[in-house]
């Protein structure tokens, strides 16, 4: 177990290195000049050259990357070249909304998946209904879902706020905060639930149809709830748990969109603005946070999977 964790930590370092290097290179290959962006269109060539020197923009990309990496290893993520605000501070402000949004989306996605799977397994007509609905939902882009939700629940029914993030420390407290998070979470959660349902439904189906131990459990005279809880479920959730972990990574792109639509000051919005303004330190700070988070989530998913299934434990620990 410990070996696996160490192994994954080494992998994480490699992944973080590769991803940040790639991002650093890409940002610097973007058209446009940060100095021109900062100084405006009418800046003199001398001023632009001076700023280039000040920001070391004329150094080769690889040198600048290792400069940045050296700072990061000392715990310094730098300051925004646009606002001169420390990246760490921007991150501490941006992480809570994004984190809450992702948790909310997962709660919505998992709940919908479990409920629809239950319906899909119970009767044939509910199976057709929910798989049809899942397919339909899956084919609508997240931003369209978000806009439809806003039209229905904000502008028409006036039930939910369409915009903004309310810090739980503000006057409204957690109540206001959660109400504001409902629609963004649903918009994002709707996008992930069809895949969840698909894998959960097919895994449970497979256990029920093909595996004899379910029949043996029935022949033992166990109650249906026990057969399901003790025999079917633990053998069906492995793929689901892995998928929750991997989906967390894919969710990031949805987060960027949803934060934009609902004006949530999270990491996605922060990074999008940073790309716009060529603000490399901010972009890389956000990226570093996300990559680290994704790797950790995947590790946690793997550990849970191992905890449930001894076969996985056997193969992964010896490997």
């Amino acid at each position: 177990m410990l070996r696996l964790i160490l192994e994954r930590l080494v992998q994480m370092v490699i992944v973080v290195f590769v991803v940040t290097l790639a991002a650093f290179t890409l940002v610097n290959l973007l058209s446009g000049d940060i100095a021109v962006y900062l100084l405006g269109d009418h800046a003199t060539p001398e001023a632009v050259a001076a700023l280039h020197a000040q920001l070391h923009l004329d150094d080769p990309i690889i040198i600048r990357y290792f400069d940045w990496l050296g700072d990061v290893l000392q715990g310094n993520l730098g300051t925004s070249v646009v606002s001169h605000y420390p990246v760490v501070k921007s991150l501490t402000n941006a992480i809570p909304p994004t984190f809450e949004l992702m948790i909310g989306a997962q709660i919505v996605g998992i709940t919908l998946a479990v409920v629809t799977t239950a319906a899909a397994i119970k009767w044939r007509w509910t199976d057709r209904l929910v798989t049809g609905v899942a397919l339909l939902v899956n084919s609508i882009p997240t931003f369209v879902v978000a806009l439809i939700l806003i039209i229905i629940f904000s502008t028409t029914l006036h039930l939910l706020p369409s915009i903004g993030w309310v810090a739980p420390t503000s006057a409204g407290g957690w109540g206001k905060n959660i109400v504001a998070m409902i629609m963004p979470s649903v918009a994002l959660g709707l996008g992930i639930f069809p895949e969840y349902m698909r894998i959960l439904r097919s895994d449970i189906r497979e256990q029920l149809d093909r595996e004899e131990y379910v029949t043996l459990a029935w022949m033992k005279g166990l109650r249906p709830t026990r057969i399901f809880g003790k025999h079917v479920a633990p053998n069906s959730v492995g793929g689901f748990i892995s998928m929750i972990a991997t989906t967390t990574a894919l969710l990031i792109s949805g987060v960027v969109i949803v934060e934009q639509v609902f004006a949530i000051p999270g990491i996605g919005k922060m990074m999008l603005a940073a790309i716009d303004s060529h603000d490399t330190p901010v972009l890389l700070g956000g990226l570093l946070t996300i990559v680290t988070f994704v790797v950790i989530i995947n590790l946690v998913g793997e550990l849970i999977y191992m905890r449930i299934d001894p076969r996985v434990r056997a193969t992964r620990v010896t490997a």
Partner: protein
Amino acid sequence: MSDQSQPIVKPQPIVEVEDLWVWLRKRGREIPLVRGLSYTLRPAEALSIVGESGAGKSIGVRAALGLLDPRLFRVTGSSKLVGTDVLALTAKERARYVPSVAALVFQDPGRSLNPTMRVGDQIAEAFLKGSGYEPGMTRAKAEARALQLMKDVRIAAAEERFKAYPNQLSGGMKQRVVIAIAVACKPQVLFCDEPTSSLDVTTQAAIMDLIGELRDQTGIATVTITHDLALAASRARKVIVMYGGQVVEALPARLVATESAMPYTTALIEAVPDIDGNGTPPTPIEGMPPDPANLPSGCSFHPRCRFAQDDCLTNTPELRVVAPAHELRCFHPVKDLELQEASR
């Protein structure tokens, strides 16, 4: 007033399967997989059902236990287990009743145990939450009994194995665990669906010995499905041969080698290495088993039968009694032909 004639009381049958039919529902069609299966079993009796893959053996047993999904299969006829027709029960009643009288051992022990649960717990579960439950049962008692059962089915180092997961045991060990679970439910009849096909030969014999011992010690009846006629004849008292979803021959096991008369049964005997003791090499049966969706006319076996004549193509043979406890579905039994040939 008294009954004038009270013959020797035979024990009540434990299993009475009567005219059991099973259809597979497929794209609006109904394909017959089992066609009129009947058999009776009394306490401590051993029955073997023999046939090739697709003969309807497994499906017939699952139907008799009420295990088939009604959305996929249609089942008619009756299957009385200890006097109650399980096919007439509701799904809920059946889930309570069937496990209290019958147990099932599966073909592939690798798939019949829950991979995420320790084997000891899987046995103890039968005592705690299943039909092995008795008033006053506690976890400690259930575990003690489960451990004893593991020793009874001769699992070596049972204390260690108790905490093992199925993937840590060999196929034979897993099958012993499955048998222990079956025994824990205190059944009156044990159905074994090819219990040894996925095991090596020495383990096969050990598992069959174990099932035989259980029968002798506890008096449960056993129904063993197998494709191995030699195994069937040596381990059972009565043998039923199935072909194309039908019984084609039923006879006492000790007569299989000498009295079999249905050409399919004799072909099976010739396909078994040396069952008749004369050293002839085994002869495979030509052709394929019939497709249940597209059964041949007349006798289902005629396309593969060496002795088929014109009437076998047009007329459908019925199961008929040819000797005490010997039934046959054939117009031209092998013995008759041999006699005919001899008289010429």
